[in-house]
Each structure stands twice: as C-alpha cells, then as structure tokens.
C-alpha cells in the first residue's frame, strides 16, 4: 500500500505551484487556473485522508464533491468578470490593471 505521505506531498507541491502562479503570473486566465490548482490540492488531501488516512471515512469524499462544485461556481463567476474586464480595457494583463492603488 502506498504511504499517505506521498499523496500529501503531491497536494503540498500542487498548492505551492498554485500559490506561486497566483503571485507571479500576469495573464488573468492562468491566475484563475492557479486558484483552481490550489483548490485541487485540497481535494487530493481530502480524498487521500478519506481513503487511507488514520481515520478513513466517507466524509472527506463528500467534502471533496462540495469543494469541486463550489470551485466550478467560483471559476464561472471569475470568467464572467474577466470578460467584463476585457470589454472595458481590451486587456487581461494583470500589470495593466492599476486604476486602484494606494
């Protein structure tokens, strides 16, 4: 049987890649994809714990289904806002959106 630490390591790596992408990428679609990557890291954690964790039970899988559906709703709203933004500014480059700053 595969040790759970491998799955947790995969989750941690995905989470870090996602966070790195959110912080550094300039293309807003990729930034949204990176947010999804972070949520999927959570899903891997939850599913791993629910199948081979110390207290394996089905709750984690149910939680994962909720996370997946909420993430879908979030990315749908995100893309809608992104299209509105593109129509206003003709660009979805993060650097160019600097109307609001202190």
């Amino acid at each position, binding site marked *: 049987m595969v040790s759970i630490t491998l799955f947790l390591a995969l989750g941690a790596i995905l989470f870090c890649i996602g966070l790195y992408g959110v912080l550094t990428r300039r293309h807003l679609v990729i930034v949204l994809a990176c947010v999804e990557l972070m949520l999927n*890291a959570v899903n891997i954690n939850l599913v791993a714990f629910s199948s081979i964790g110390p207290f394996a039970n089905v709750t984690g899988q149910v939680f994962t289904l909720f996370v997946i559906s909420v993430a879908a709703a979030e990315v749908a709203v995100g893309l809608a806002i992104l299209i509105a933004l593109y129509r206003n500014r003709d660009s979805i480059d993060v650097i160019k959106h600097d109307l609001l700053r202190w």
Partner: protein
Amino acid sequence: MSAFDANWSLMTPEIVLAALALLIFTIDFMTGIREKKPYLGRLSILALLVSAFLVLFMNGEGGAIADIFIVDTFSTVFKIILLLAVAMVIAISMHYLDKNDDVYQGEFYSLMLFATLGAMLMVSSADFVTLFIGLELLSISSYCLAGFKKHQRKSTEAAIKYIILGGTASAFILYGMSFLYGLTGTTSVVEIGKSIPALYADYPYIITMSMLFMLAGFGFKISAVPFHMWAPDVYEGSPTPVTAFLSVVSKLAAFALVIRVFFVAFWSISEEWTFLFATIAALTMISGNFIALTQKNVKRLMAYSGIAQAGYLLVPLAVSANYAPMAVNTIVFYSVAYVLMTAGAFAVISYVTEESHSEEMNSFAGLYRRSPFMAIAMTVFLVSLAGLPFTAGFVGKAQIFIGAVTGELLWLAVIMILTSIISFYYYFGFIKQMYMREPKANDANLKVPAGLSAVITIALALTIILGVLPGILTNFFMEVSHWMF
C-alpha cells in the same frame, strides 16, 4: 440519525429567506429588463424583516441538526444583527439604484439576499462543510456585487482583484481544514474540539500549521493586517452600497466564524493562538489608522477605517483565554455599535458622493449649509467611530479596553488608545469639510429621500441611546450564560 428525524424547523428563517430571494429573482425577470423597480427593494427589506422575526420567535431555546447546523444564543444574536444590517444596506442601495440606470435592480437585490443567506449559514454552522458552503455563498455573491457596474473600469477591476484574492483565501482555509479532517476523521467543529488536546500532544506542528492556514484565510475575510491589501481597492471600486455591505456584513459574519472555529475547535490550545491574535490586532490597528491619515478618497478612507475597526474587534479575541463569555459579550456589543455607525455613515456617504459625482473628501464641503440634518448625523457617526463619549462606539471601545486591561494585555490596550487618538485626525477631516468649508457654487440644498433618512434616523437614534444607556443591551448580554453549545 436519519435526515428525516432532524428538526428541520430550526432552519425556517433560512428557508424562508431563500424562497423569498428566489421569488424576487423570478419577479425580476418576469417584469422586463431595464425598468426601475423600487418595489423589489421594499420586498427584499420585508423578506429580511420576516426572516429576522422568525429568527427571534420561531427558534425558541434553540437546538441542532446533527451537530451540523446549530441554533444557539450566539447565532441568533448575530443573525439578527446581520439581517437588520442588510435591511439598512438595501434601504441605502434603493436610492443608489434609482440614480444609476446601468444596474440591473432585481439581480442586485436577490444577490444581496443570497449573500445574507450565506452569512446566516456561516453564523450557525458547526461543521466545516456547511461553514465552507456558507462562506462561499457569501463570497461568490459579493464578487458579483463588487463588479456590478460592469461598464465602469474601476468596478470590474475591483471585482477581479476580489475574486482572485478571495479564491486564494478560500484555498488557504480549505487546506487547513483538510489536515484537521485527516487527523480527526470528522468535519464537525465540536468533535474536532474534543480531539484536539490529545492530537496536539502527538502532532503539534501539523495542528499549528493547519491553524495558521485557517487564520490566514479568515484574516483575509475580516481584512486584518497583513491580509488586508484587497480591502481598499475593492471598497473603492465597488458601488457604494456594496462597499457598505462588505464593510458591515462580510466582516461581521467572518468574525462570527472566527469566534466559532477558534472558541470551539481550538479552545484547548488557546495559549497558542491568543498571542497571534494580539499581534494581528496590534498590526491591524496601527497600519489601518496610519494609512487612513493620507487618504483623499472617501470610500478608501472608510476601508482603512474599517480595517482599524477590525483591529479593535480582534482585541477581545486576544484576551479571551480566561474570559470567554466576557470576550463574546464585548465583541457582540461592539458589533452592534459598528453596524449602526458604519451603516449610518455609508448612508450619508452614498448620498453625498452620488449627488456631487465625486468620491473625494471635498465633496463633503459645506454639507452643514446644504443639509444640516445629514451633517449632524454624520458628525455623530464619526464621533462614534472615533470613540468619543456619549456614543455607542465609546461604550464598545471602553468595554474592549477594560477587557484588555483585566486580561493583562496592557500593551495592547495602550496601542488601542494611541491609535484611536490618531484616528481622530482623519475623522475630523470630514467634520472640517462639513462645517468649515463653503459649499461649491452650484451645489443646491439637499433633499434627503425617505428611505435614506429613515436609515440615518434609526442609526443616529440607536447610536446615541446605546451611548447614553448601554445597559439596555449589556444587561441582556450579561444574563446569557451559554453563548454556544
């Protein structure tokens, strides 16, 4: 327990609110796209009041649906505060929506009601799954509301910033939750609270790490420093009523969530997190108040003022170790005061900025000449936000201060007093504009619409009454022996 045995009647207020929100949504698309629909605003206020009435009288002594959905004094009080706050925000937005033709009215109101539903779920849930669903219902509706003026560059920019950072914060919260689930095998906050002491002895680092992840995510939602950078941008770009909504409802619902999670799940390791909260509270008060000093845009200034207020609200959490019921008492009282003064101030700000088509500080110039009632009301709200005597804000701050001193966190109490004194400067900037500047030549006298003046009057009356006779509320809170199950 099977799903059919549960006491579903506990959810009546939520179910009624959801049904009425859907009804408003349906009426909206049955009555054409671009008309003015003031009746929908009145209907949403009615929906909120009905829901508040049901919260107050239907739930009785409370109970729980399988440890997932909990109705106790804490959730009841917070739900009523939130529902009344949203009713005030909707009364503010009715005037705003009349002025702005590019806003789809029905969707605005129903989104606001769905966001309220999310906030109510957050307040009453004691399970990570429901807690997350409530949080996301509130957040996703707020993302839409922030970008509601979709032809305006600032509004869409605010919305995209909000959704990206908000999604990241949700991922942080969930990542923390996933480790707690893995180590305990349950998502129930109460069950996790029971198994934390033993687990903490075995895996201190994993528990601390998941706690820190959740703290970062929650810190974003309550806009505490160092997770506050989104707040000024989003508050400035959003339509003004939405700014009021974000600064009142989102913040307080997130506070209720923090209290529930940290007081129930992490209570046994409170010595690990009280110092963290003290540090965050100190940072939040200092940077919120100092950055506010340099702001010229009214909504941006209110964002930094809101950050500073979140800092004051965090102080009781930092001293809670030995005074849990006391801490909840002070937080609830200050929340009431915060709702009244912030909603009242935003009612005035929304009206003045709309009339003068400018969000700069000098749009308030000579307000006393143009509308004495608004100028005096705004003065009271600002004095209350600054925490001067005879206002609700003063009583709330005094309670927090006394709590900090009895909790032996003198340094935090001192920081709180010093930063409050700094905050006088920017709050009195408004007052200087209103009384000591001449109005611009073409500014006519203002006639306040009925809905707005109702909100301002109620907020003004309650701010002063709670400032002079705080006993009305504090005596009631003192009698509460169990805030939570």
